[in-house]
């Protein structure tokens, strides 16, 4: 009797799944998304979740399957395989390290389309996308350069790879375009998500006189909260929702707005016209947005920041030579400019940044 009941209980989900299958097989698209962290991080994972929700709101009948805290290991493959078994025909693998595992599944399931955030792999059913963040940091620098009173800006970096250094460089260039006396101090924690170190790094920067703190880690929450509690300004990154964490010290921030891209991708899958590409879009294309300004930011500063953002959106490249590194060596010559293909190549900081890049 008990064994029979156990068997029935075990079979129940299967029976339910079978009942649900015909509905799933209809033309209503099921989209899967995997996140490396929690969607309540006020950061990167939140921005991805918000994008999926915008897509869901824009296309009636779309179902979204989400999985949080999916590690960058074979576990990711199992989670995505489960989504495919539930009928997902489009999958967003949103962390850099999910790439290989999503790609393996793309080979195995040619009828399922994949989009990976930040990678480079390509196949007929596998594309990738990311925000062109570097130039977008320039207007953030303008904001910080105008707001600082100590002329010292702090930047908490995760892993100091070329793209992160590019963000810091554009931030410094923007700040010095409005305030040549500004210096930027950088602390790299060596991890994308280590809250204790992020808090200690923020404190160390404030101790050195920084009164505006920016960051590039997965979740800006810790850095912003510590800055707020110490009474200094902050500039957010990843999700524009982070402004809620600093009602007093928030200046502005950059947030990814993946919604339009995800919506367009889902529509292309519904129409059977999925076209993989290496998509890198910035402020101009609407993949990155500037967050609303905080209460402390004067109107003229807001106007300057907005103007700088418009300039970048229309194609202004902050990495137009001559640009020297912080040891005085000219790295980008007069008449030269570094484009999107070189943003991962930075292993040097521009003049005005204190510290070593390698």
């Amino acid at each position: 009797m008990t064994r029979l009941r156990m068997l029935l209980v075990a079979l129940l989900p299967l029976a339910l799944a079978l009942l649900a299958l015909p509905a799933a097989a209809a033309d209503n698209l099921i989209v899967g998304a995997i996140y490396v962290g929690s969607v309540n991080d006020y950061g990167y994972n939140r921005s991805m979740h918000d994008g999926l929700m915008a897509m869901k709101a824009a296309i009636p009948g779309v179902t979204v399957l989400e999985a949080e805290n999916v590690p960058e290991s074979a576990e990711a493959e199992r989670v995505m395989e489960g989504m495919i078994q539930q009928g997902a025909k489009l999958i967003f693998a949103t962390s850099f390290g999910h790439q290989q595992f999503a790609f393996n599944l793309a080979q195995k399931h040619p009828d399922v389309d994949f989009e990976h955030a930040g990678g480079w792999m390509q196949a007929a059913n596998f594309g990738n996308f990311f925000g062109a963040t570097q130039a977008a940091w320039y207007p953030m620098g303008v904001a910080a350069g105008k707001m600082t009173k100590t002329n010292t800006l702090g930047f908490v970096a995760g892993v100091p790879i070329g793209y992160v250094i590019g963000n810091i460089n554009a931030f410094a260039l923007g700040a010095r375009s409005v305030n040549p006396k500004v210096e930027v101090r950088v602390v790299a924690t060596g991890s994308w998500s280590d809250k204790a170190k992020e808090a200690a790094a923020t404190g160390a920067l404030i101790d050195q006189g920084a009164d505006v703190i920016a960051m590039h880690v997965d979740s800006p929450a810790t850095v912003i909260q510590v800055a707020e509690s110490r009474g200094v300004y902050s500039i957010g990154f990843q999700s524009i929702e982070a402004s809620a964490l600093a009602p007093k010290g928030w200046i502005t921030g950059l947030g990814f707005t993946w919604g339009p891209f995800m919506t367009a991708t889902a529509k292309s899958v519904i129409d059977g016209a999925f076209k993989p590409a290496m998509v890198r879009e910035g402020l101009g294309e609407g993949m990155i947005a500037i967050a609303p300004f905080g209460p402390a930011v004067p109107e003229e500063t807001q106007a300057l920041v907005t103007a700088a953002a418009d300039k970048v959106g229309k194609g202004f490249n902050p990495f137009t030579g001559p640009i020297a590194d912080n040891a005085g060596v000219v790295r980008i010559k007069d008449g030269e400019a570094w484009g999107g293909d070189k943003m991962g190549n930075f292993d040097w900081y521009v003049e005005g940044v204190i510290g070593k890049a390698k």
Partner: protein
Amino acid sequence: MAYAAGYRPALLQYQALALAGMLGGIAGAHLSIALTLTWAEGMTAGRGFIAIALVIFAGWNPLWAVIGALVFGGAESLQLQFQARGVDVSPFLMNMVPYLLTLLVLTFSGLRGRSAAPAALGRSFFGVE
């Protein structure tokens, strides 16, 4: 041994367990409420394993564990302080410091001889039958 000396081993073990839970709770509360002002899943970032390693390095001696914790914490803090102060050292080298320290401590504790783990660690004892 403790039993022979007139103590009640089970009670002692439960006391140690309760104390460990309390100290862990205090550490967690400090991390989320006092230091980072935020909470997130997995926010200890593997520090629990460092604590276990510390206990082994300290040979189950609480005083050495405190000293070891200060050295490890100090190394981690230095790595951030040096960067904020603009000391001219590569951040990659600085990030190596806690690991180098681990190797050093391992080497020295290796020289000291066999691990000093308590004989009854992980075993239950309910008296002699």
